[in-house]
């Protein structure tokens, strides 16, 4: 049924999901990068996990309300298959792709004990991809992206993720410089000979 409340819920939950996703990604980067913090490492990892659950919850609300609301016809197939909706075809597809990626990450993490370590890590890297996809979807769909406060919110989220990612990349270089030269040579020669080896220190997403 058409309902302005559903429409507002879709937009609000979408924004909230994006903010939560940004926070999840930042915490994930800090966890993998072993950032020092007042919070113990295992606790930060736990907060990251719970934030990701909240993200999925709000994403589900966002998708469901969009489907139920008949003001715009989105189509149930478009929930998982991109480019199958006539409404804002490309921008919606991005949303579908982002949701698919997040679903893969979420399911593999929920079943982590049963998924092989390498597969889990590969899937988890997709989380990095889901974030810019989600941001593009939010900007492209357009409904609220003209509002200053919404753009400001997106800018803050983007800044957070970019700074964290930059810190991580810079940190990786610093960590490599700190390793003894004999060690770097040893690891390089092992990696060049081993395809698909389980990465040691520094080989995490």
């Amino acid at each position, binding site marked *: 049924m058409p309902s302005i409340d559903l429409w507002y819920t879709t937009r609000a939950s979408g924004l909230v999901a994006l903010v939560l996703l940004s926070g999840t990604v930042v915490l994930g980067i800090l966890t993998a990068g072993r950032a020092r913090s007042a919070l*113990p490492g295992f606790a930060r990892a736990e907060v990251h996990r719970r934030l990701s659950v909240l993200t999925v919850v709000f994403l589900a609300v966002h998708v469901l309300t969009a489907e139920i609301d008949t003001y715009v016809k989105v189509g149930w197939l478009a929930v998982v298959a991109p480019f199958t909706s006539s409404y804002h075809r490309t921008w919606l597809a991005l949303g579908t792709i982002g949701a698919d990626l997040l679903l893969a990450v979420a399911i593999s993490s929920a079943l982590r004990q049963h998924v092989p370590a390498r597969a889990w890590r590969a899937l988890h890297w997709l989380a990095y991809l889901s974030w810019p996809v989600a941001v593009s979807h939010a900007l492209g769909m357009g409904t609220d992206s003209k509002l200053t406060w919404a753009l400001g919110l997106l800018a803050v989220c983007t800044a957070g993720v970019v700074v964290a990612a930059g810190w991580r990349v810079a940190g990786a270089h610093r960590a490599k410089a700190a390793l003894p030269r004999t060690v770097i040579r040893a690891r390089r020669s092992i990696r060049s000979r081993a395809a698909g080896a389980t990465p040691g*220190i520094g080989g995490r997403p």
Partner: protein
Amino acid sequence: MRISVDPAACDGFGYCAELVPELMALDEWGFPVVSQHEVPGELLDAARQAARACPRRALLLAGPVQEELKAR
């Protein structure tokens, strides 16, 4: 129940030493040293939580139940 570390899997996250400092400490490079291999009753839950928290599944718990599960 005995606690031990798979040194090849361990990447030095240190969550184990945070969760069960009575049994584990970290060396100068951030890698775990087991100070006590036998897990006392009151720390069993904490030890299991630590094993679940390890991102590399490098913390190993071996007791009668565990061995039975492994044998299957």
